[in-house]
């Protein structure tokens, strides 16, 4: 039975791959080209497998994920490029889904391709495609599903917030319990991380928005959760399995556990550290190893978490801390957590660094450090994930409205979805969502970014809009 499940997953992935290959190849060659025809035949074979059990194949894009007949298709590393390509194509055409009926033929697919290619270069590609493909009865297209209604949206927001604060509250509890010599509850950590993984699969923007708010108390606990969320999101982008995401989320959540041993007066010091204070702070990775192993005992997960806790301030070029007599390569999980840690740390008003950086400035600085400190490949994924204008970036639009970035646009990175928070005269408005990729009827973008702003400089309270 398991084999059957595996094979249907393979077929689903295959359909995405072949469809991407057909579109890509036909954009270079003619749809009658042998390579295209071969891919069409392969797609037909895969569709036929599904028709054995279903009357139609519906390939829908929801958020950044494809669903085949409502089952989410897991992305694996080797297929990431084709998946991303097809996501981009769907978004470019404003497509929500393509449905193949079980009477579809290879000729129908070729006719659809022709319609697709001609529609892609028009100003209203989806309408053109729908019209041109209207004559093909076995293939239909649909726009993305209607956005959730307000109540549903409110419920989702509540769930996301509860997930986030539950994780922070748990983390705070762990720190406090360990400090007072009590045993921490690992079941709860798993629950918190599993919830974050689930929420990230469907409501990535909302949860990432929570990490962008930096006005909370208890920096360390929020930071641990933020790093966990950013790491899981990264893990998703590079194709980690659900159980790997859980593990990554757990090790990230505990990466700074050693900080609980840093005296509060040092940790909360409003000015820069003295050399002696730095010496103490630099011990937290080692204290983290000890705390994790004492808390959880020796098993594979605690050891891996200990490794990440130890390594997360060690850089690619072996600089950073702690000093090592026995250097070894850094784990991929460490490298992910390091990225998330640096980004969240730079953009937060940490007690020992009172001036937080704007997200895009933090990314720029991280870019400078890529060769020496960070993994350049993972950094690419990180940038593509948070967007060149990460969530929470304050912008002035060409319309002079002030806006906050709400969600990245993978297809057109410099045109994120934004929350407009002032009108053109600078009056505060209740935030409303605007997609900067939206065009007028004449095909020009309705609005664009004029420049970025530093929300800290103008004391724009992100929580007011993103919470």
């Amino acid at each position, binding site marked *: *039975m398991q084999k*059957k*499940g595996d094979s249907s997953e393979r077929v689903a992935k295959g359909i995405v791959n072949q469809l991407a290959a057909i579109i890509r190849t036909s954009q270079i060659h003619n749809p009658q080209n042998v390579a295209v025809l071969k891919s069409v035949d392969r797609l037909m074979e895969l569709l036929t497998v599904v028709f054995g059990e279903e009357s139609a194949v519906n390939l829908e894009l929801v958020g950044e994920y494809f669903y085949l007949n409502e089952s989410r298709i897991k992305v694996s590393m080797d297929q*990431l*490029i084709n998946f991303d390509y097809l996501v981009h194509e769907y978004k470019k055409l404003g497509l929500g889904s393509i449905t193949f009926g079980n009477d579809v033929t290879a000729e129908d697919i070729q006719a659809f391709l022709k319609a697709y290619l001609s529609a892609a270069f028009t100003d209203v590609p989806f309408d053109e495609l729908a019209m041109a493909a209207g004559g093909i009865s076995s293939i239909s297209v649909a726009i993305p599903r209607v956005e959730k209604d307000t109540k549903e949206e409110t419920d989702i927001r509540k769930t996301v917030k509860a997930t986030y*604060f*539950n994780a*922070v*509250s*748990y983390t705070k*509890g762990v720190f406090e319990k360990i400090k007072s010599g009590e045993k921490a509850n*690992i*079941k709860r950590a*798993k*629950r918190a991380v599993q*919830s974050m993984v*689930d929420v990230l699969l469907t409501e990535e923007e909302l949860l990432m928005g929570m990490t962008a*708010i930096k*006005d*909370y*108390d*208890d920096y360390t606990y929020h930071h641990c959760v933020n790093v966990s969320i950013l790491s899981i999101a990264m893990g998703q982008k590079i194709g980690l399995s659900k159980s790997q995401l*859980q593990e990554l989320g757990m090790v990230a959540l505990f990466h700074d556990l050693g900080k609980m041993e840093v005296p509060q007066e040092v940790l909360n010091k409003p000015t820069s550290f003295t050399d002696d204070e730095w010496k103490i702070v630099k*011990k937290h990775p*080692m204290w983290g*190893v*000890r705390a994790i*192993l004492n808390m*959880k005992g*020796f098993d594979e997960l605690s*050891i*891996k978490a200990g*490794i990440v806790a*130890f390594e997360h301030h060690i850089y690619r070029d072996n600089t950073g801390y702690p*000093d090592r*007599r*026995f*250097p*070894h390569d850094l*784990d*991929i*999980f460490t490298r992910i957590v390091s990225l998330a840690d640096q980004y969240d740390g730079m953009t937060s008003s940490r007690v020992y660094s009172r001036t937080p950086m704007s997200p895009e400035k933090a990314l720029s600085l991280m*870019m400078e450090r890529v060769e020496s400190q960070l993994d350049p*490949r993972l950094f*690419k*994924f990180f940038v593509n994930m948070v967007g*060149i204008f990460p969530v929470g970036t304050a912008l002035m639009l060409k319309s*002079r409205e*002030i806006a906050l970035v709400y969600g990245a646009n993978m297809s057109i990175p410099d045109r994120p979805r934004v929350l407009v928070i*002032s009108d053109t005269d*600078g*009056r*505060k408005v209740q935030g409303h969502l605007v997609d900067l990729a939206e065009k007028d009827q004449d095909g020009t973008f309705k609005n664009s970014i004029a420049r*970025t*702003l530093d929300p800290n400089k*103008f*004391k*724009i309270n992100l*929580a007011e809009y993103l*919470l």
Partner: protein
Amino acid sequence: MEKTPEISTPEGKCAAEAIASLQRARKNLRIYPKNNPIYMRTVEETYNKTMDFFEFGDTLELRIQRNEFMLGDEEVYNGTGQEENFALFFFRDGIRSITFTSELKVDELLKFLSAIAVDLDREEVEEDLVTLLWEKDFANIKYKVDDSVLVEDENFQQQAEDKARENPTEEGVMQQAQEAPPEDDDFTPITPMPVTDEDLEILARDIEDYGKGYIDKLTDIVFDMLYASGNIDEFKDVVRIIQSSVEHSASNDDLPGAMKIFQRVKEVVQKTKSENVSKALNEVLRSAGSGSLMRIIGSCLDDKDGIKDEDFKEYVGILSTSAIPQMIELLGELQTIQGRKKAIMALTFVGKRDIGAVSKGLQDKRWYVVRNIILVLRETKHKNALQHIVKGLAHEEPRVRREAIKGISDFGGIKYIDRLVDMLYDEDKGVSIAAASALGKLRHRVGMEALIARITDKNLLEEDASLLRKYFEALSFFKYDDVIGFLEDILKKNPFFGRATYNEMKAVAVYCLGLLGDQRSMGLLEELRGSKVKQIADAANTAIKRIQRAKKG
């Protein structure tokens, strides 16, 4: 008091049966192993009961309350007062509904059943039902969870939100932002970064490699921490971690991993000038022989492919004599011959350094442990071992006595020859034979005389004639004229009564002459070759050939 819900609808009854079946399955899966027919039948029946519901619709959605399962508005299960409240089992972890869809597969249901069968109340279980179900990643079983059951501080969220909103954006700020000149920042805005096939390949490899050699890595880290310890408390903490690393390696059948850690500890001990460091780390080395580690090693030894010879030898090399009691205990617990052989080898190696500690194993209540301890004492070849081996002669188990006799023989224990003579009369045939053989090997006149006395014991032939051959074999070790004379006397006698039995003795005596190989016996043997008693004639023939062969070379 138990409550039974009144179910009026057919779908309600069907759902109730499915629930009862799930509850039964939970119990049976805990009791029976996977290959048991009841286990397999339970899974099949539960699957069928669940699938029966789909005659009424594509989904079976059960809402869960503290004591009830609800199908729509109908109560289909009530656990009030029941020994095991099945609804509460789900409810307590926050599960508020479970939905099975008609596409449900047997193996998916089996995964579900395996999850609910886990004894979640055990302290070492780091899961609750929700985390277990989540890890199964079901396609056709969905469940809704209320995470608020986990919230310890109900006010936390509100307080955090209030704090975050504490300083709202002031009116006029936006205008300031609009009017402010562009920032003169010295950073370059980032641009999109396309991911290449090579990037993906390398990352895929990194993901595949993730976790490999994680114990080695931890070892590096722990030793880094050891050198960086700022005070003795920190140092001791790290030493404890090292200790646990060793146990973790061993419990994961990674003896080489554990060995690497011990080797590194040894290196530090050799380099350090601090007594405290040396003392603490020597504790780690001593722990190589701890009972817990020894048990883990034991399970590897019993497993045919569990442990490589070279790894085990390396392990034994670091054991100190303080490990001997645990090694003796291990010897008693091992289940396989190959395991025991390795343990004996190890105990022999370590035991040479403390024979007294090994000899304590002679007090073990298990006879086979005592026998193996004697074997170990024999193998040590240590001069002090014999005095302990001798104690085995008094053991009630013949196999122990035999082993002790062999030990005395190995050590040439003339001092204990009288004890060996006594053992010739042991009620156990094997012990007596072993004693005879030992006396033969000692080649002492006392032994010879004892053997002759035993052979000529008139009761012997009646007791067990088969012993004769062994005694004569032992006698053949004595190249004394007395022995030849004794044998010739036997051969010349012709008793009237019991002739047949006596002929048997004669044949064995002839055989013994052959073993002795003395040329002077050839005349007598030639004569006996013509004996009418075939048994004697054949024996003489063989003896002659043996002597001739010995002469040739």
